[in-house]
């Protein structure tokens, strides 16, 4: 009951005029970004981050803005998947299987509307899951000491490395190590020693998070697109009848609910995320309800299930981010960095110290999902026009916003040079299939790992037994071992994502 009272208070903040405007803007940006192949919510958040600083927005509004872009992009993803068979990100790849088949049959409108409704239902139920589990988990997380945190972060690294490296665990861990190395640049706050600054004053405060994120995701993406063979989008399928029938909705309803549950809990696991959630939902529904072997040929349930799952997973991913301070995906990793820059520290005490931010954020997601439903049903025709923006116009906009974003924070050409260096590195990593998400995680959590290692060993007077001293540490060691074995299991059972 206490949670409902707090949620009600959250609504009073979320429904302030400024925040309503932010929710609407973030949903429009998210949907738009989600539709554009190759550009995801992380690019939008990276580029907008400096602007939120300049606007002087409070942390709660920034959180609402970034979250809206994040789950809004899940809606947008489905549009390009269904109409063009071009998923904006890998999480929408499953939607494209049946969604595009429906579009080819002239039933794109039905596919788009069921995907919007499934995302909406999945999203709304997931917010309740978030509220319930966040409160429960925050009580548990208070028992975490430095040793538990250290092991938890080791688990987060192995999980995100093993699942984001396209089956290549070593590359994922190397990427995380590169991020940790970047995090060691600058003054070490424990000892006061300047590390890896090579005598330049520009690096004394460390490498700016904004510079790294804009470099890897803004400029890196620009070089990537620059290098690709781009086939211009000139043809879209007819949208057809906009709404599905009541009978079709009834048939899809339980698929939506089941996918919500599995999607949310997969989203909670670090490294798993929306892509795996949508694949699992599709496979489960195929086994449960596809008696006539209709999946793959254009079945509405095969669109509804992954859409409900991926939106639920994107909300589930906020649990480890906010309650444990450990992001489960690259987008939430960037959000964590942003929150830390605003002086907000997610973790076990987050619900006590920043209750207003958490509850207004949860409440804003109700509003956001409603806005997305309203936007996606009648305005889908308008949104598809955005797919026609040519690259020669889109990419210069990203270049300008990236450079101006970095310059507005530091006013230094050195940071722009550093951004370019990271952009080139980001491009090389994409080309050689090194995942970037672990690097960002390493940059953000590297210092925390070092600090917790130091604290734990100080408590234990140098004994490493402290890392095996409680049930919680053993639990996370077991999960770490499992996440290291997982890629081999997935390979053995031929599961790709």
């Amino acid at each position, binding site marked *: 009951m206490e949670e409902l009272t707090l949620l009600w208070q959250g609504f009073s903040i979320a429904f302030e005029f400024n925040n309503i405007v932010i929710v609407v803007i973030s949903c429009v940006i998210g949907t738009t970004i989600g539709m554009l192949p190759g550009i995801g919510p992380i690019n939008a958040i990276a580029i907008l981050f400096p602007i939120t600083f*300049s606007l002087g927005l409070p942390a709660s509004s920034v959180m609402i803005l970034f979250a809206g872009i994040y789950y809004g992009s899940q809606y947008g993803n489905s549009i390009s998947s269904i109409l063009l068979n071009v998923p904006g990100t890998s999480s929408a790849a499953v939607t494209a299987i049946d969604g595009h088949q429906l579009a080819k049959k002239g039933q794109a409108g039905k596919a788009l509307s069921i995907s919007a409704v499934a995302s909406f239902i999945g999203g709304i139920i997931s917010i309740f899951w978030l509220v319930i589990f966040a409160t429960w988990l925050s009580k548990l997380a208070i028992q975490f000491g430095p040793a538990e945190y250290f092991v938890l972060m080791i688990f987060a690294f192995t999980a995100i490395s093993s699942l984001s490296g396209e089956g290549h665990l070593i590359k994922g861990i*190397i990427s995380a*190590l590169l991020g940790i190395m970047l995090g060691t640049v600058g003054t070490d706050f424990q000892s006061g020693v300047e*590390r890896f600054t090579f005598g330049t004053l520009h690096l004394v405060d460390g490498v700016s998070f904004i510079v790294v994120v804009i470099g890897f995701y803004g400029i890196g993406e620009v070089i990537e697109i620059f290098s690709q063979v781009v086939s211009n989008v000139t043809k879209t399928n007819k949208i057809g009848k906009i709404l599905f029938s009541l009978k079709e909705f009834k048939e899809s309803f339980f698929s939506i609910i089941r996918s919500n549950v599995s999607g949310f809990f997969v989203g909670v696991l670090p490294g798993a995320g929306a892509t795996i959630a949508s694949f699992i939902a599709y496979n489960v529904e195929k086994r449960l309800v596809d008696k006539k072997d209709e999946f793959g040929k254009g079945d509405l349930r095969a669109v509804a299930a992954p859409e409900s799952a991926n939106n639920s997973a994107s909300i589930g991913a906020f649990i480890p981010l906010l309650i444990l301070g450990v992001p489960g995906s690259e987008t939430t990793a960037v959000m964590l960095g942003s929150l830390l820059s605003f002086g907000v520290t997610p973790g076990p005490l987050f619900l006590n110290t920043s209750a207003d931010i958490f509850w207004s954020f949860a409440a804003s997601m109700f509003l956001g999902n409603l806005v997305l439903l309203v936007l996606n049903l009648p305005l889908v025709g308008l949104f598809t026009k955005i797919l026609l923006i040519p690259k020669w116009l889109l990419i210069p906009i990203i270049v300008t916003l990236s450079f101006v974003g970095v310059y*507005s924070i530091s006013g230094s050409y050195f940071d722009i040079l550093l951004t370019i260096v990271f952009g080139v590195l980001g491009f090389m990593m994409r080309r050689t299939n090194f995942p970037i998400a672990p690097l960002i995680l390493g940059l953000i959590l590297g210092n925390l790992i070092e600090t917790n290692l130091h604290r734990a060993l100080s408590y234990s007077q140098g004994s490493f037994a402290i890392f095996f001293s409680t049930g919680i540490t053993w639990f996370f060691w077991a999960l770490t071992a499992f996440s290291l074995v997982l890629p081999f299991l997935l390979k053995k059972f031929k599961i790709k994502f």
Partner: protein
Amino acid sequence: MLGNAVYENAVYEESGNEMSLRRRIDGLVFVVLAVFYALVSLGLEEGISRGVVSSKTFPLAIAALLFFLGLLLAIQNQGSDHSKIWPSKAVWGKIFVFIFLMVFYALVLDYLGFLLATTLICTYVGVSLRGTLVKSLLASCLICLFVQVLFVFALEINLPLGSIIDGLLN
């Protein structure tokens, strides 16, 4: 047009041997990086006493792990790596020009000013991505003007005007 050249023979599929060689090179790059990082770490001062963990302990542990994984990557003989698509030499040429122009942009930003420097680099990008010169130049001018006005007047952040425009204004 300049941009069309970018898309001709833009990618090719690598053979298994080429992929394997590239993976070995990747691995060795990280081995060298780990050695360099370890050497710099060893030269760090101890600083204020931190008990059992000194300022160089953590970086040395990271370097050791990177060295080991780099070696593993270099010697591993794994079949599929998904890195089959690789830009052709012509595309690499264009990418290098683009990177060079971005570095040049950073170095001359204060001299040319945000408006002029950004318009020039955006026009280059636009033309390279199949836009016509006139359209790209016009779009770049409008984008930069909009951003300059937004930042200076709405966000109250000064972007460099540059010596040339400054001189003209004075």
